[in-house]
């Protein structure tokens, strides 16, 4: 199969395709959202190195893919995420405070510190909690889209995952069901070249991940994932198609993970620096900046200034999160079920009696009534 790569912006910032209809302020907003992803990434890595947080799943190089694609969504639509879409959640309404509380896994975290870092959720903007288990969210998104169809609620479900996840069971059942049901959803595969140390050529013998859609009757599109305008345009098309009952689309955003898989990974063991350098020349931020400079929507020095503003905003929030109160011990046994059942109340009470005796419990950690 031959699938042509969709591109609007050349690496030098020249327009070569039909640009989506976006106002000047929308274009500037897109740039700011992308820059926030990059600054957040840098700040989080710094916190990790300082031992303040445990883990960072990096997004450097993926800013256009994450932001451009998600910019297509309306507020009512849902985004089913993997590890790296936290920046899209922030753009769609996840407060920075909640983002950071999640990274700190502290008492301010809406998930009560139960998930490891980089596992965001935001009910307010329809961004469900993700497990670390690769590919599981794909069928959830399809089922939720089916529910939307049955209930006539009108929203579309955008389902995100990586190149590695295309080998998961969830990918195959998800695409198959979505095709059969013509569910109002679309799939966004962020092909960043790597699944930890396994490169995309070892993940599939197909020429493109987009080819895989055909087997399920789902049209596949391949997009330059470092071209924010192309990412936006193709996702907007898929969204409109899904919304109008036209069925699902598989969109593959071809990009590159510039850093290690996470803060615990050393990519020099398995990939050539020359490949990384080649992708650095296609940096999505630089590309979009050149375009905006060319159109006079940014001036020299604007990026540095914006970066400073974003850093200040993020650092202020970091300071607030550093002062979070300790986690209530009762959260150990809560939310397993709607009510804390008797056997868990007993287990907790026995535990807290020892903790109190040894001075490890705080005020408010007291026993449950039985």
């Amino acid at each position: 199969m031959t699938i042509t790569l969709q591109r609007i912006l050349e690496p030098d910032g020249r327009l070569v395709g039909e640009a989506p209809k976006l106002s000047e302020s929308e274009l500037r907003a897109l740039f700011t959202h992308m820059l926030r992803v990059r600054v957040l990434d840098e700040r989080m890595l710094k916190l990790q190195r300082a031992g303040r947080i445990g883990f960072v799943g990096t997004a450097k190089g993926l800013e256009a893919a994450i932001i451009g694609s998600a910019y297509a969504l309306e507020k009512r639509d849902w985004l089913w995420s993997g590890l790296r879409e936290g920046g899209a959640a922030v753009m769609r309404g996840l407060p920075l405070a909640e983002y950071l509380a999640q990274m700190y896994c502290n008492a301010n975290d809406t998930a009560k510190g139960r998930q490891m870092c980089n596992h965001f959720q935001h009910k307010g903007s329809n961004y469900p909690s993700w497990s670390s288990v690769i590919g599981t969210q794909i069928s959830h998104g399809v089922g939720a889209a089916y529910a939307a169809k049955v209930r006539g609620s009108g929203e579309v479900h955008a389902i995100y995952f990586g190149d590695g996840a295309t080998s998961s069971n969830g990918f195959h059942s998800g695409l198959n069901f979505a095709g059969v049901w013509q569910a109002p959803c679309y799939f966004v595969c962020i092909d960043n070249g790597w699944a930890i140390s396994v490169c995309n050529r070892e993940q599939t013998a197909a020429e493109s991940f987009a080819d895989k859609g055909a087997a399920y009757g789902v049209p596949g599109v391949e997009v330059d994932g470092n071209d924010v305008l192309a990412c936006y345009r193709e996702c907007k098309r898929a969204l409109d198609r899904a919304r109008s009952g036209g069925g699902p689309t598989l969109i593959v955003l071809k990009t590159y993970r510039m850093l290690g898989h996470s803060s615990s990974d050393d990519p020099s063991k398995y990939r050539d620096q020359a490949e990384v350098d080649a992708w650095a020349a296609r940096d999505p931020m630089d590309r979009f900046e050149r375009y905006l400079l060319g159109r006079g929507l940014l001036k020299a020095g604007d990026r540095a200034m914006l970066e400073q503003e974003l850093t200040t905003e993020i650092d202020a929030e970091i300071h607030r999160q550093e002062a979070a109160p300790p986690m209530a011990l009762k959260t150990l046994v809560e939310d397993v079920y709607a009510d804390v059942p008797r056997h868990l109340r007993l287990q907790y009470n026995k535990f807290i009696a020892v903790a109190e005796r040894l001075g490890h419990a705080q005020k408010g950690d007291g026993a449950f009534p039985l």
Partner: protein
Amino acid sequence: MATLTLVQAVNDALKTAMRDDPSVVVLGEDVGPKGGVFLATEGLTKEFGKARCFDTPLSEDGIIGTGIGMALNGLKPVCEIQFQDFIFPAFDQIVSEAAKFRYRSGGQYTCPMVIRTPYGGGIRGGLYHSQSGEAYFCHTPGLKVVIPSTPHDAKGLLLASIDDPDPVIFLEPKALYRQVKGEVPEGKYTVPLSTLRTVREGKSVTVFCYGAMVPVCLKAAEQAAEKGIECLVVDLRTLLPLDEEGVLEAAKQTGRVVVVHEAPRFCGFGGEISALIAENAIEWMEAPIARVTGFDTPFPNTLEHHYMPDARRVLDAIEHVHGY
């Protein structure tokens, strides 16, 4: 003898097996040039080539399913599942296929294979990088379940597992990967499966444990000794098939038993030990059997140190059964 960490001993075992037997192959996610996320397979692709140690697509179902096929056709696969938490996509292949091929074919087709996977908490990995799922596998006839706690045992048990004619789930306590060091003989040796290890002698209380809980129980036993309570600490090493006679003998020696695991309590392995003793040695018991376990909840993250049994919780149980 070299002094190795537990993960280095695993690596040494794999190299030893691959040098010894050309049919041994290693497959999994990131086991190739990266050498595994914990470096258990470091250097294998370099020494044995891509045909014998290779990265797979991201599918546990595929890793185990194809591993079964390899085992059925003359290879000895050692499959790595990156974290035990990610073994569940392959649960069907393990439980319905690997565990039952011998039985359903009247012994005509068998699956000599090893599934290695790091398990357990203590690394701030949250729900999906911390679980202890041994009970699921122990509830599956046809599987063997092995958990080492020292470098010496890690190598000897892994080599015995690779030699074994049946599928072995080999659970590696990741919290101990670099925490414990010990002398490991060079070359091939095996530690027989289904034999337990006496970690410490004692006449007052018997403590049964395995994996990452062994050093925790040893610490508690040392603290108990300061209070005049001498504990017999037993590392079970193989959960299935269990050395039942060894367990009963150790229980009878003191008549007071504590069982420790980090997995949830309900239907956990501690229940099996308790039942075994209750059925066969109740007359020897001087006190009710105590279990120290994780809570019956998913594995937490920020509060993981409260969830996992620690020396003070184990000591509390030891004192309780001792004073009963």
